[in-house]
């Protein structure tokens, strides 16, 4: 089982890196969004109610990471859907490996990619003048929350691909990434959000994931936001993995 997961994970990761034109958007979109948000709205840190931050870039880094991880999830879904469309998925199913390894292998690659995505944004932030207030331990905390959340988002993408079975439908999820982000406190402090988004954000796990990754960047590591972030990311991952495995079983029954 472990060998199959590792082998499939390595294959998925290698495929991703062999096509940089498809990997680039995972970091390019959020990086561009980050640039536009910071360039256009940098003066909002002077608004009453905005938390004390070194700059708007520090505040926005966690939003960019969350967005990138969500796009990574969509990308994982598209990759699985294309394997279904191309017939490779059926050959995997026929091979002598535990079938759940097909899902877990893809998620292992997604988790590794998530770590790299988080590191990318930390590097970009530092290059353009951001400060990581909690230092190296803070960076590790951000990577940990990002890896768990990325795995969860990847599992959602896999589940959608197994249900939809075509890449264009999974691709259609792309705009919805923004929906779930907009109804969270990823981009702006919860106290400054308009109603009813401020209320919805309170129940959106993305708010806690983003705030958990943001806390070590804008202040020293605080137990509450970091633990809430980890719990939210872990919860999303557990539920999504269970749903993706269930979707796999349904698909195999119908095949």
């Amino acid at each position, binding site marked *: 089982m472990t060998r199959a997961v590792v082998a499939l994970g390595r294959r998925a990761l290698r495929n991703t890196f062999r096509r940089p034109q498809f990997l680039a958007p995972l970091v390019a979109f959020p990086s*561009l969004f980050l640039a536009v948000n910071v360039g256009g*709205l940098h003066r909002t840190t002077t608004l009453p109610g905005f938390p004390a931050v070194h700059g708007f870039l520090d505040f926005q880094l966690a939003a960019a990471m969350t967005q990138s991880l969500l796009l990574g999830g969509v990308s994982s879904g598209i990759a699985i859907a294309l394997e279904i469309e191309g017939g490779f998925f059926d050959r995997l199913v026929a091979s002598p490996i535990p079938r759940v390894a097909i899902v877990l292998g893809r998620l292992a690659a997604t988790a590794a990619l998530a770590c790299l995505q988080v590191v990318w944004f930390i590097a970009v932030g530092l290059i353009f003048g951001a400060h990581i207030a909690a230092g190296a331990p803070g960076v590790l905390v951000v990577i940990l929350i990002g890896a768990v959340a990325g795995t969860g988002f990847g599992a959602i993408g896999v589940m959608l691909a197994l249900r939809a079975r075509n890449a264009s439908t999974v691709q259609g999820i792309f705009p919805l990434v923004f929906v779930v982000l907009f109804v969270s406190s990823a981009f702006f402090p919860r106290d400054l*959000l308009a109603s009813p988004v401020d209320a919805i954000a309170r129940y959106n796990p993305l708010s806690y994931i983003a705030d958990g990754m943001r806390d070590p960047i804008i202040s020293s590591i605080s137990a509450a936001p970091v633990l809430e972030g980890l719990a939210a990311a872990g919860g999303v991952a557990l539920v999504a993995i269970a749903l993706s495995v269930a979707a796999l079983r349904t698909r195999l029954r119908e095949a």
Partner: protein
Amino acid sequence: MSQDARIVRALMRRALNEILRVPGGAIPGVLAPTIFMLGLSSVFSAAARLRGYHADFRTFVVPVGFLQGAGFAGAATGVNLARDIEQGWFDRLLLAPAPRGVLLTGIVASASLRALLPATMLLTVALVLGVHSPGAAGLVLAAGLVMTIAAAAACWGVTVALRFRTQQAAPLMQIGSFVAVLFTTAYAPHRLLSGWLQAVSDVNPVTYVLEGVRQGFVGSVSWGHTWPAMLSAAGLLAFFATFAIRGMRRTGAQ
């Protein structure tokens, strides 16, 4: 009706039929600009408290949604073409006794029409929520600019689809219009942008298109904002059409 016009119409009808027959793929693109407008105005509404906005944040970003919808429509056209290439349908289309230019016109024109769907949805929701009506002249101008930008985005999508020949290239199709629309005065008036973004927005032709669409929402339509918008939109279409035409010619030669 000439044979070429019939082919263009058939390709447009086929593309529009997909919206009804594959709603799972089309609905997100139609809803996205509205969702984006609602989301942005909910998240960043407090930004309009800064001096320099002459409207509430929702009114300010409605035109951004129009252009995003045009970009999504163009990208969707590219994705659909990539799918047709993958499944072999496009090869059969190339065997048909129709000039490449006519095939391209049909594909691109369908994007222009398709862009009116998200724009209509966005406008309806925005007006219901109390956004200032741009008036008849503002609406006609906005529709024309949106259709032209959608055609330009579709030309980019077609170029990418013909180059990579796979739906996996979809993000590349989307990122062009995404960047072009956002690196403008999308979120804030020019004087509130940071220095580097001011410089980029000054040379980005989509800024002028955006201001052309926006003028009716935040004030009145004037020729001073209209002609730069029309010129920029036409220039963008001509620029990207050049690459799409070259891609079609190369595809035929392979």
